[in-house]
């Protein structure tokens, strides 16, 4: 009746996951009770859960990523403490638990922090930058978000019901095959990635279509803001690469569920094929994450330097070059598997070549700053911090791209330090820069600068205190994923790294404090202009937060830096012109399709993990029925009357006119 599920699935003998699970459960319950008692439930349901507004969905993506960042961060703290104490002892985490923690840390940080964070920012900003009213497929957008949330939920469920994979974040066979991982851990891993992978693919298709098909008047390709270009490249990579991940995991699941032999040791299975396929997805994946971050830095650096982006066209070229070359380097993840000199040399050289377009970008940002009037506000600090950090990470990457060096450093702590260097220094700093930069746009008030700067400095220093020791430990021969060790020389570095982790934690606390303080002072921090940073692209042309229809009129774009152009133009001409004629605007209706679909997907995923077959059928039928109901809907749009549009638009124009006249009198 319940498949493999029984009371032994709940780890009563392990206090750490049980207490953690209980705390989270109490937290969720408290929030739920507060929501219900205060009567916020209808608001949440109508305005957020069923929303198909790209801005709301973007915010929910970022919220999901932030919560998961805390979970993944807790895993990181536990690992650093374990390695600091586990010299010639077992530490405080038993091996099977430690293995689950590092697997969960990697899985969560990549799939449920980095991915939703960048997808959230793209969702929030790209339609605004393109000057359009929504993404190409609004309801699909909501489905994509909720399926991602399903994946995150399943991963976290494994904390209290059953176990998570002990295989590392990519679940390499034969360890992840049934004979070596008989538990449900790998199944949790694989099914949550399969379900959230569908969500990611859907988001990718949606954003590619949006950029290609929905641009406002005059917004041709070479006038798009840089962030739209990197979004396009990143989502093309999603569309091209994620099917590989889905197919590979599907083969692994066939091995585990139906006794196939794709990746087993026996019966002609080929373990090396798994490495090959998973990295054919895995390397484009890192560019999927970092390209949007590059776009964010381009926007931030040009805004806070008060200059147009240096070398816009070379930046576009570099982005598209990375998009293609990222599919030619995946073997560098397994140089040591024995493909031989020809193959290793070619892929090593390709890996070094991909550093060239990235270098072009760094120089472009530097030249954008050169001669600019730079304002060192929080988003700019994150960007400069990124440049410093990312160059270090990029150079160690070029080092690892040399096959003979890689043979020495493969799977060492040096590698761990390298990829954290590029992912934290690149993607996470980018996500934070974007968060600080676009928060006023999303919510209508700025974030507190003092806490923001504190958060930056603690994170920046904490990062180096944590990961420089790991580079050194790697040079001293320490391999990754060690539950305990006996080499005295590594010990001091592990302790320094743990101290660095504490500093990083202070950074995260500052980040939380920044949000709390800003919400409290929101009246003082209110942004009435819609343009708090003196921005250059169209998202700043509308009010903050933007109305549901984004723009009362389709903006007319005449060059790069559309809004900057508009402002310069307005200064030369009089602001007064005839009152425009407003029109009715049709907007997509909210729809619970995404939420209901994800609800059934959760049931189906859980049932698949525990082999509860009747429930699998139930969940599958439910999801299919939801789809059918959606497909047969009669009306999916509602009309905002012209009067209402006029009222909303006039308020925002009036606000701005007052500000302009105030600025004029100063």
């Amino acid at each position, binding site marked *: 009746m319940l498949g493999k599920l029984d009371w032994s699935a709940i780890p009563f003998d392990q206090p750490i996951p049980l207490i953690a699970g209980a705390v989270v459960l109490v937290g969720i319950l408290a929030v739920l009770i507060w929501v219900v008692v205060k009567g916020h439930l209808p608001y949440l349901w109508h305005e957020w859960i069923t929303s198909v507004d790209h801005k709301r969905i973007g915010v929910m993506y970022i919220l999901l990523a932030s919560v998961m960042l805390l979970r993944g961060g807790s895993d990181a703290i536990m690992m650093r403490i374990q390695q600091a104490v586990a010299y010639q002892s077992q530490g405080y985490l038993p091996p099977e638990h430690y293995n689950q923690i590092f697997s969960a840390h990697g899985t969560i940080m990549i799939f449920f922090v980095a991915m939703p964070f960048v997808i959230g920012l793209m969702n929030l900003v790209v339609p605004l930058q393109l000057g359009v009213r929504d993404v190409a497929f609004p309801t699909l957008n909501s489905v994509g978000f909720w399926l991602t949330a399903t994946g995150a939920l399943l991963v976290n469920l494994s904390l209290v019901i059953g176990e998570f994979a002990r295989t590392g974040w990519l679940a390499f066979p034969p360890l992840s095959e049934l004979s070596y991982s008989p538990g449900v851990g790998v199944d949790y891993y694989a099914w949550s990635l399969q379900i959230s992978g569908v969500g990611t693919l859907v988001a990718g298709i949606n954003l590619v279509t949006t950029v*290609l*098909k*929905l*641009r*406002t*008047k*005059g*917004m*041709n*390709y*070479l*006038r798009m803001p840089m962030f739209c270009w990197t979004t396009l490249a990143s989502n*093309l990579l999603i569309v*091209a690469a994620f099917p*590989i991940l889905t197919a590979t995991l599907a083969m692994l699941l066939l091995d585990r569920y139906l006794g196939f032999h794709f990746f087993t040791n026996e019966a002609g299975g*080929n373990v*090396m*094929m798994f490495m*090959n*396929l998973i990295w*054919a997805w895995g390397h484009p994946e890192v560019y999927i994450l970092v390209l949007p971050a590059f776009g964010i830095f381009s926007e931030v650096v040009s805004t806070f330097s008060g200059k147009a982006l240096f070398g816009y066209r070379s930046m576009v070229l570099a982005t598209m070059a990375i998009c*293609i070359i990222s*599919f*030619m380097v*995946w*073997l560098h993840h397994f140089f040591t*598997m*024995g*493909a*031989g000199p*020809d*193959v290793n040399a070619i892929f090593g050289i390709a890996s070094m070549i991909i550093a060239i377009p990235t270098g072009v970008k760094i120089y472009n940002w530097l030249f954008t700053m050169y001669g600019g009037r730079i304002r060192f506000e929080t988003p700019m600090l994150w960007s400069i911090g990124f440049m410093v950090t990312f160059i270090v990470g990029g150079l160690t990457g070029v080092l690892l791209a040399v096959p003979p060096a890689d043979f020495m450093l493969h799977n060492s702590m040096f590698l761990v330090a390298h990829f954290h260097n590029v992912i934290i220094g690149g993607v996470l700093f980018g996500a934070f820069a974007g968060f600080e930069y676009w928060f006023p746009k999303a919510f209508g008030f700025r974030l507190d600068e003092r806490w923001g700067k504190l958060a930056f400095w603690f994170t920046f220093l904490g990062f180096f205190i944590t990961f420089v020791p790991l580079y050194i430990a790697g040079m001293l021969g320490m391999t990754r994923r060690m539950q305990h060790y006996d080499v005295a020389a590594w010990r001091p570095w592990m302790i320094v790294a743990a101290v660095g982790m504490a500093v990083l934690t202070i950074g995260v606390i500052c980040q939380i404090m920044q949000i709390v303080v800003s919400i409290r002072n929101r009246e003082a921090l209110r942004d009435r202009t819609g343009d708090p940073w003196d921005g250059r692209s169209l998202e700043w042309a509308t009010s903050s937060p933007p109305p549901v229809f984004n723009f009362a009129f389709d903006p007319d774009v005449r060059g790069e830096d559309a809004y900057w152009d508009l402002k310069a133009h307005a200064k030369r001409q009089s602001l007064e012109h005839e009152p425009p004629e407003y029109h009715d605007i049709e907007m997509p209706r909210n729809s619970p399709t995404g939420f209901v679909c994800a609800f059934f997907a959760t049931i189906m995923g859980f049932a698949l993990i525990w082999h509860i077959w009747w429930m699998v059928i139930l969940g599958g039928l439910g999801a299919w029925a939801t789809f059918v109901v959606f497909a047969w809907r009669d009306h999916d749009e509602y009309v905002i009357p012209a009067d209402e549009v006029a009222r909303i638009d006039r308020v925002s124009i009036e606000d701005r006119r007052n500000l302009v006249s105030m600025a004029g009198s100063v």
Partner: protein
Amino acid sequence: MSDQTHMPAGHDLAPGDEEQHSVGARILGYVVGVVLALLLTATSFFIAGTDLVWQPSIPVALIVLAIAQMGVHLVFFLHITTGPDNTNNVLALAFGLLVVFLVVGGTVWIMGHLNANMPPMDQIMQMRR
């Protein structure tokens, strides 16, 4: 380059949309596509079993027929044309082909080398003898 070729964004068509043709013309297009596809399929089955042609040419002929089949599908069912409104679709197809080529070709190459260099343990033992 941008100002001369200025065309309002959003003007180009979604895949499968064709504005100027009537329903009859579109149905005719699909019928021609189906007939061609069936013809190519039938030819493949015929060629595979026949002894009317030089035997070593059969695999080559099958490959040619398969590529022709793909072409028919692209033109008649997926409406990939050379028209200016179809640039996106053609580019997307080219990108897809490039990625498939890179991944499949790279995999074949890598796995071939791995098979040659890293045989299973019992084969290595045999080589030593």
